């Protein structure tokens, strides 16, 4: 019987009781709090950063398995944060943003720009709990098999 790398990685995680760590960088505290509550019940540990600078600092200081990043934030916006992160890390980054991606006055496609800058996945707000869990678990399944396979 064969297992997928994801199943094996999950198995090891369960065995060692080591929760996955998610960093949410979003200036809208209500979104962060909701993600934290939901993910907490799935045994993920969620750290919230309501300012982009805090998020970058948190990433430098400790290990995370995935970053959820909002695009429109005061200060450094999500794209700038993504540039920062991609300088020295290949951590999965889920970029999330509401619409208003393009309008006649603002003809920029922010999610496409995020994709060009190395976002792993783009999600359009609002999204459902099931979509969020699916997206996060999908990024976990992308880990290289060498990290999950026993020899």
């Amino acid at each position, binding site marked *: 019987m*064969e*297992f*997928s790398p*994801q*199943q094996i990685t999950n198995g090891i995680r369960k065995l060692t009781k080591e929760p996955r760590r998610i960093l949410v960088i979003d*200036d*809208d505290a*209500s*979104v962060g709090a*909701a*993600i934290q*509550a*939901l993910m907490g*019940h799935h045994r993920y540990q969620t750290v919230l950063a309501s300012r982009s*600078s805090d998020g970058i*600092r948190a990433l430098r200081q400790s290990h995370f398995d995935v970053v959820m990043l909002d695009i*429109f*934030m*005061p*200060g*450094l*916006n999500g794209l*700038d944060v993504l540039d920062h992160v991609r300088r020295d890390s290949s951590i999965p980054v889920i970029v999330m943003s*509401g*619409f*208003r*991606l*393009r*309008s*006649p*006055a*603002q003809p920029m*496609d922010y*999610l*496409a720009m*995020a*994709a*060009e800058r190395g976002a*792993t*996945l*783009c*999600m*359009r*707000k*609002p*999204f*459902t*709990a*099931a*979509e*969020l869990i*699916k*997206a996060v*678990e*999908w990024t*976990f*399944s*992308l*880990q290289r*098999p060498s990290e999950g396979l026993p020899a």
Partner: protein
Amino acid sequence: MTEIENTAPVPLAAGFDEELPDDFEIGRHSSTRSRLASEVGAAIAHELNGPVTALLLYVGDIQQRCDRLADESLKQVVDSAVLEAERVCALIHKIGDLFEAPIPEDTAISVARDAITWWARTGHPDSKVAMGTGDHAINESSRSGAKPLTPREREVLRLVVQGYSNKEGAALMGISYRTFECHRAEVMHKLGAKNTAELVRLALLETTVPCPSPEQPSA
């Protein structure tokens, strides 16, 4: 940490904070009015994103935890709440589409859009309506003339994206190294990728790879 000059969180479009002309009259300046109205509408709809996202996540959380309860009537109430919240979500997407300018047919952008629409659509019975046009199967790329991937090619793509080498992938699928390479070349051709790195990037963005994929590599 130096913070860059505070750029507005939601870049308000021109016209939003412009002074209205002195002779502004509703009706006579219908183009200005409709432009302003659409910008205001888009800004309000944007503001709805955060609270609605939070609401959806909370009801989803409640629903998942209710599954463990025996109280059927409570479950029904919660299921209805989730359904209604998802309808609100679909409506917001629809409003967003109303205000958005058409997307230029550029590869990079359409790839990203496919990923977005796909995620927006997954698990949403109503989202077909919400997404309006551009409703094509995940497998059919928006590039004209691109053929869908065969199941074998999808499997090869999945293994490549997961980081398996040609040799490991071939062994997992129980096919020869050469056949694996052929499939991979065909996938790259079909998706228009110049090299493996690009293939992986496209695959991640386009999410043609089933996710998450608990099924075994060789069925």
